[in-house]
């Protein structure tokens, strides 16, 4: 009897061990661990060290810093605020969460949109991986001091876009179409096969009568260059182009015949119904190269 009891006990022990080994390696246990880890991720300690500088690299004091932390609070997001000190430095400590958004601003400055704003603190986390704070190397946030916004006028509108090369000329001062030979700029577009909805070859030409243009690149397009203007720009999208597009979105500095400078966005839409082009531009009525304007107005330009 005692022997039987020992054998049964041993068997029960063995079965329990087997079950434990199976369970230990089971996906269920892995999942249970994942859930615990996932929950813990939202209580990760967060530290952040940042520095605010202007366009010349000088520290900016008194910049407002808004932190947004996703955590386990009732709203799911907690906000914290601070200001940069005389050296442009600021910190965030004694906070827990998973994802940190850092938004820097200051009256009289533009915030560069190229600043990194998303930081992940928990395992895995985002495209950049886990962020490791370093007090010796604070994350730099760039601001740009605002200048004068005098005499800058904004205009814009939609105009027909013939696809057979017929030029459409615009008077930019009054923002209206005018007879050929009398406008500031001329827009032309040629489409190889008007019956095709996709994959046709097309080209365009934008010219400035007795003046010139050059592509405008960069974030703060506030000062028109003095030199470097060409009388026209031509472009083409072939049927083999990858990616193929039926529209283009271009930004230019223009120098008009009367010496005035213009910052313009020109969008050609070959597949609008009917085809059209959109122009939006800023020019300085005094003839100055300064084209600084309210940056909120440029936000909708988006990516070209």
């Amino acid at each position, binding site marked *: 009897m005692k022997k039987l009891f020992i054998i049964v006990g041993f068997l029960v022990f063995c079965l329990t061990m087997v079950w434990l080994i199976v369970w230990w390696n089971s996906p269920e246990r892995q999942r249970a661990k994942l859930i615990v880890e996932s929950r813990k991720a939202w209580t990760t300690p967060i530290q952040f060290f940042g520095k605010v500088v202007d366009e010349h690299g000088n520290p900016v004091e008194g910049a407002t810093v808004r932190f*947004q932390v996703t955590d386990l609070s009732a709203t*799911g997001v907690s906000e914290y605020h601070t200001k940069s000190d005389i050296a442009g430095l600021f910190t965030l400590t004694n906070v827990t969460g998973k*994802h940190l958004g850092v938004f820097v601003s200051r009256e009289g400055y533009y915030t560069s949109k190229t600043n990194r704003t*998303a930081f992940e603190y928990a395992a895995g986390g985002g495209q950049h991986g886990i962020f490791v704070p370093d007090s010796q190397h604070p994350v730099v946030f760039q601001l740009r001091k605002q200048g004068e916004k005098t005499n800058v006028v904004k205009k814009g509108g939609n105009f027909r876009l013939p696809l057979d090369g017929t030029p459409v000329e615009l008077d930019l001062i009054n923002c209206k179409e005018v007879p050929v030979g009398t406008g500031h700029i001329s827009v032309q577009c040629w489409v190889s096969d008007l019956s095709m909805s996709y994959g046709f070859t097309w080209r365009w030409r934008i010219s400035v009568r007795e003046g010139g243009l050059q592509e405008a690149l960069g974030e703060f397009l506030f000062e028109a260059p003095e030199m470097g203007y060409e009388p026209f720009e031509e472009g083409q999208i072939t049927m083999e182009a990858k990616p193929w597009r039926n529209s283009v979105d271009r930004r230019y500095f223009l120098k008009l015949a009367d010496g005035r400078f213009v910052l313009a966005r020109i969008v050609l839409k070959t597949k609008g119904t009917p085809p059209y082009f959109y122009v939006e531009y800023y020019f300085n009525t005094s003839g100055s190269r300064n084209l600084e304007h309210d940056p909120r107005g440029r936000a909708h330009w988006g990516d070209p």
Partner: protein
Amino acid sequence: MQFFGGTAPTLFKRLYWAGYKGRFIALRWPNRPDPVTFNEDEYYAFVSAIPYKNFIESLKNSGSWDSINVFAHSHGNIMVSEAIRLGQAGMVNNYVLTEAAVPAGCYDTSDTVNNYHRFLEVEARFGGWNKTPDSAAQLGYRGHFRNIANAGASSKVPGNVVSFFNPHDYAIFTGAARLIAWEENQILFKPDWGLSGGRVRYWGNPPKGPRVAWNIPFLGGSRLVFHPYESMSFVARPRSQAIGVTATPRLTSAITLNYDLHYNLEFGAEPSDHSGQINRPIQQVFPYFLKVLDSFDIPHVTPP
């Protein structure tokens, strides 16, 4: 133009003031039966794509629409992208995805996009039979919507496919406290392990494909999953972040343009910013609607 969800009237009004004067259809489908996971919601969206495709094609073939442009928010993009994938070439003219809860890898098969370490780590951790399908051929996500655009003459969308994304999006990426974000769902509930109703449990089971087990004590059998809708919704873990939080390269992707909602409109991690274009005052988000019309090749007003 078509929109989804109860916010359609607001969207229509905002688009109207941005310059849209065309016809407008709003659609909804039976979504989110499961309050915990995204999985059933996704399955319903996939299945709803079939009648939706038939509806769009009936509009297209009626000949009374100059152009058909589609806009979809969040998980609505599963239904819309699938309908477009199933449809005829040139089915819709342009397509806007906003804050889309769809893996970026669906639109781009490149390893650059399909290497999101957070998902790869979980895949590696489970391994073996619990490794989930990756490519569309294996009934996974990668490349499932690759040919809707940028695919030559067979493109279902010959015009623009524009993704409006927010790198801080709470519902898709950074959140947890108020709801399980889409990203956490991919980690915790793929394969679906029974929390979702407790009826069935899935696993990857390569190389035969996903398998489902009926969760009935002592009697539970199993079967293979053959349908991609079931496999993607309940089994497959993506290898990429959602398209609604990240940009994809234009050369390899079916997305022709990306629009950063944080960069351009300062959308943050507030849960309400998952629909910030509706929840915020129009004065803050007017550029959003200009960009939507721009994406649809529809003339818009010039902002003040």
